[in-house]
């Protein structure tokens, strides 16, 4: 059965450590952050960090870096580009999956900023989820061009501007996993359901005018779980920080499945 409560050793202790703002802070604000250290043998807890926003950059990632540099070096999170292009800093901020580097602290209403790892994933440490299965699902859809016709000897394979535009948006996916980890179907059945990110990637190759494996790609998705666990709940599209539309892509794949039957 689906588990609606956390197992005893994953239950969160809400009364974690509290770090007060420094004397004379001009704009103090509290960040409540999920902490888990697998080596400690302790349950996860939520620590509170009060920081002076007058001496901090505007984004949630700036606050996290400030906390790590100035208050608590044990805080773990992923980040790299700090401009919404690498997808590493995805986390659950104020109840919404998004990128810490593009989410402004100012836009978060309420006095506290609550930060948790992406939902329903195994936690490696603090805000770092284990994305092994998520990446394997991406690999499973063969995210590369497949052709039987050899490439022209003297040039690359051409594609019209219109055909390029079809794959332009889906190609912009940064594999941050905000969408898949916001999808209830993925929470309950990620062992068999590929999830919106992998399906968007599959769609990107299905509609690529240069690809010659459309049929095989559809065959590989035609499954009550791999594709049809999507119940059009639309959380994925809502969550995507790059404004992509995985739900629509999944709908298009389903339409292609039907149209090749009749």
């Amino acid at each position, binding site marked *: *059965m*689906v588990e609606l409560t956390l197992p005893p050793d994953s239950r969160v202790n809400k009364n974690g450590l509290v770090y007060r703002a420094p004397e004379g802070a001009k704009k103090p604000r509290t960040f409540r952050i999920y902490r888990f250290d697998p080596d400690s043998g302790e349950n996860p807890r939520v620590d509170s960090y009060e920081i002076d926003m007058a001496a901090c950059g505007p984004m949630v990632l700036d606050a996290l870096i400030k906390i790590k540099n100035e208050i608590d070096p044990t805080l773990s999170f992923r980040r790299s580009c700090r401009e919404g292009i690498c997808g590493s800093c995805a986390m659950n901020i104020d109840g919404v999956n998004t990128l810490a580097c593009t989410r402004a602290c100012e836009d978060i209403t309420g006095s506290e900023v609550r930060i948790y790892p992406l939902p329903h994933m195994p936690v490696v440490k603090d805000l770092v989820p284990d994305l*092994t*299965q998520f990446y394997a699902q991406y690999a*499973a859809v063969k995210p590369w061009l497949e052709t039987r016709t050899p490439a022209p000897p003297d040039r690359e394979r051409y594609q019209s501007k219109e055909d390029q535009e079809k794959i332009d948006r889906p190609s912009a996916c940064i594999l941050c996993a905000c969408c898949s980890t916001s999808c209830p179907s993925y929470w309950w059945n990620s062992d068999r359901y590929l999830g919106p990110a992998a399906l968007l990637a599959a769609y990107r190759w299905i509609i690529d005018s240069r690809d010659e494996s459309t049929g095989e790609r559809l065959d590989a998705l*035609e499954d009550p779980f791999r594709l*049809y666990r999507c119940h059009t709940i639309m959380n994925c599209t809502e969550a995507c920080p790059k404004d992509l539309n995985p739900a629509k892509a999944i709908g298009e794949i389903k339409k292609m499945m*039907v149209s090749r039957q009749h």
Partner: protein
Amino acid sequence: MKRAASTPLGRVLGSGAAHSGTQHWWQQRVTAIALTVLTLWFVISLLCLPDLSWSSVHTWLAKPFSALSMSMLVLAACWHSQLGVSVVIEDYVHGAVSKTLALLLSTFAHLAVAGVALLAVLRIAASGN
């Protein structure tokens, strides 16, 4: 017997695609449309009756067109519900035995409801004018 895969990709690929699901999804859409039309017909027909007494509803339902449409409504509702409930079971019940039992139980329950309802409509139609 299912082989336990040892790599993440092996686990995701599992036993491969079942090459089904499209019919199920399509039938769910088609029965949904049928249900919308038939439910509208049902409500409007009842509203057009002089009153909702046993005899006027009985007389109305005994007419061939009403009985036919009512049978289709029963079939569409049961079929749509059977498809929907099986999806819910697959979503939430993960044990191999409990899932199979739940799916069987749901199928039999839906068949029973459809059978009883169809029989009732038939009897009314047969008794009518």
